[in-house]
């Protein structure tokens, strides 16, 4: 028998019981559909996060203090306060370093008129704007002069400005930061990214002012470094390490700082999202297996129901292998058709989700290939047993079956 004719036979048999065929396929449709949709959603989320990380600033290196050891307990990175403004100046003098923004930060209540909000207050320098790729919406950014004179001036993030009901007319007005009056000199353009910690909810003040009023001492919490070219990131990182080791008198075994770059951050995120994708796909595959069992169930019922038909076919010359193939192809057509419908629905669902969540819709052909392969495998695995039952029927018994 030719395979094409087997497929035609299977399709016509299934078409004769359409509702049952559709209900049987439902398990596979849901299984494949959810795999395709979940993987696409996970990929969309990954690319969304990647975009966000890149929006933090291009060619960014972040220097953080190392960990302290208190008793026998090693504290987390950043718990030591070993970085100084002097370190930042030394880094700024390196070649290939485009801009350096040392940072201190604290939480404070900000009051404007009758509105208030609690947000992070970041003390930094004029380079912050370039390093973190912000843009000014209204007014101007912090200046070097403001830092030298420890002026009480503030630049508001767009969300913070909204929360305080301030718009472009607010430039030059006064806000209370932690109870201390500051003059608003600028408002930042929104970065427009979503996430748990908003890049747009903060108040920027000169670092010298912050050190005077909010955090004691001359230590800085982190130093953001913008490298002139992506090609020289590794080289610059090495130079930076050397300079800080010299200044801190360490030799690589007892460094009291760490330098993170974007690649590291991306690696961390992609390993997390990769795990997430795998987890979601794993959960969805369970429904695919359940769908396969549904197919096996229906095929077994079908073999029982069509015992007489099998007997007739054997009497008029069908061999066991013909019957086996007929039922196997039926199971395969069911699972494959279910798989294809599932792919269409899954892609549609992920496109809708992507549109709602606002990240790019990514369609991966690999997912489709894997999904089709999976549904074929399900058809074979769960179709073979019923088909063998059919093929082994004794023609005399089958013909007499009522």
């Amino acid at each position, binding site marked *: *028998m*030719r395979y094409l*004719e087997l497929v035609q036979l299977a399709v016509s048999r299934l078409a*004769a019981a359409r509702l049952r065929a559709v209900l049987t396929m439902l398990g596979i449709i849901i299984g494949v559909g959810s795999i395709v949709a979940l993987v696409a959603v996970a990929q969309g989320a990954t690319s969304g996060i990647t975009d966000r990380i890149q929006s933090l600033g291009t060619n960014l290196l972040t220097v953080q203090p190392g960990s302290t050891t208190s008793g026998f307990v090693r504290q987390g990175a950043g718990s030591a306060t070993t970085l100084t403004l002097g370190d930042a100046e030394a880094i700024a003098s390196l070649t290939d370093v485009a801009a350096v923004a040392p940072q201190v930060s604290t939480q404070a209540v900000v009051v404007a008129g009758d509105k208030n909000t609690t947000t992070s207050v970041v003390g930094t320098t004029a380079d912050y704007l370039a390093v973190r790729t912000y843009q000014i919406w209204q007014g101007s950014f912090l200046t070097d002069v403001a830092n030298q004179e420890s002026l009480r001036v503030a630049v508001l993030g767009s969300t913070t400005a909204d929360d305080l009901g301030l718009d472009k007319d607010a430039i030059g007005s006064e806000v209370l930061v932690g109870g201390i009056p500051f003059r608003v000199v600028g408002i930042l353009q929104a970065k427009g990214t979503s996430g748990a910690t908003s890049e747009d909810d903060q108040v920027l003040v000169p670092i010298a002012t912050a050190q005077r009023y909010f955090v004691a001492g001359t230590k800085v919490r982190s130093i953001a470094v913008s490298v002139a070219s992506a090609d020289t990131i590794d080289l610059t990182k090495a130079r930076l390490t050397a300079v800080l080791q010299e200044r801190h008198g360490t030799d690589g075994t007892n460094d009291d700082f760490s330098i993170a770059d974007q690649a590291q951050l991306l690696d961390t995120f992609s390993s997390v999202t990769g795990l997430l994708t795998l987890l979601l796909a794993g959960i969805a595959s369970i429904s695919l297996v359940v769908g396969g069992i549904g197919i096996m169930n229906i095929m077994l019922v079908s073999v029982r129901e069509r015992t*007489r*038909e099998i*007997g*007739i*076919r*054997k*009497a*008029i*010359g*069908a*061999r*066991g*292998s*013909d019957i086996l193939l007929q039922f196997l192809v039926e199971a395969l057509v069911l699972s494959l058709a279910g798989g294809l419908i599932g792919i269409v629905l899954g892609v549609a669902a992920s496109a809708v989700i992507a549109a709602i969540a606002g990240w790019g819709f990514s369609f991966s052909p690999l997912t489709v290939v894997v999904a089709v392969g999976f549904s074929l495998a399900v058809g074979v695995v769960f179709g073979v047993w019923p088909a063998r039952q059919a093929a082994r029927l004794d*023609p*005399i018994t089958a*013909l007499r079956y009522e």
Partner: protein
Amino acid sequence: MTGPADAGSGPGPAGAPPIPVVGAIPAASAAPPVQPPDPEAAGAWLRADGAPVIELRGITRVYSTGRLEVAALRGIDLDVYAGDFLAIVGPSGSGKSTLMNIIGCLDRPTGGTYHLAGTSVETLDDDDLARVRGRAIGFVFQSFNLLPRTSALENVATPLLYQGVGRHERIERAHAALERLGLGDRMDHEPSELSGGQQQRVAIARALVTRPVLILADEPTGNLDSASGMEVLRLLHELNAAGATIVLITHDSDVAVAATRQVHVRDGLLVS
């Protein structure tokens, strides 16, 4: 596989002109003449050495159910020659159904030898038996046994499917067989849309379409009213007159008289 299978599917031209039917029973209705077996495939092969189409020697069949052994057939010797129209008559429980299963290659004997058109079939495996059934034997059953929810045309074409005949030729030959049984206007009907007599005619068309060496009819009139039953017997007679070898199994001696030769089965033995 050699023997009946190959010979049965011999390269007879599909459009071979039918042998004119000179029916012994006058055609009462306007039913057209039936399609004869292919003269080159069945006829030439059968007449090659004059050997019987069916040669049963000492056939026994014992059913074992647990410790109980029941002998359904206790030594059957039977020859059926090309062109015979043989009725095997017996009451229920006589063993005639068992005999039919063995002649029809649906079952194997416990002992004895069975040659179908010169080929020993008692030792064949399941697949070879299926081939022999498909190519050498055309079945007509009491309960018609048509494929449900399948058109008459597809029903008749199905045996050819299992012989690997291409779709175009299958449809052509099924079409011709149905035309000649007077069902030209019922080709697209499913069995549930046909009367019993029409269903049995579809079944006869299906038995003919492979040009078998033997037509095996098991109580073909059992589920039919007497008029349709007579019509079926008339068709079998016409086929026989055109050269087909027919074995008819029945419990009804009124039906058996339609055959040209009768044997009686009783308690697993042939009695004359």
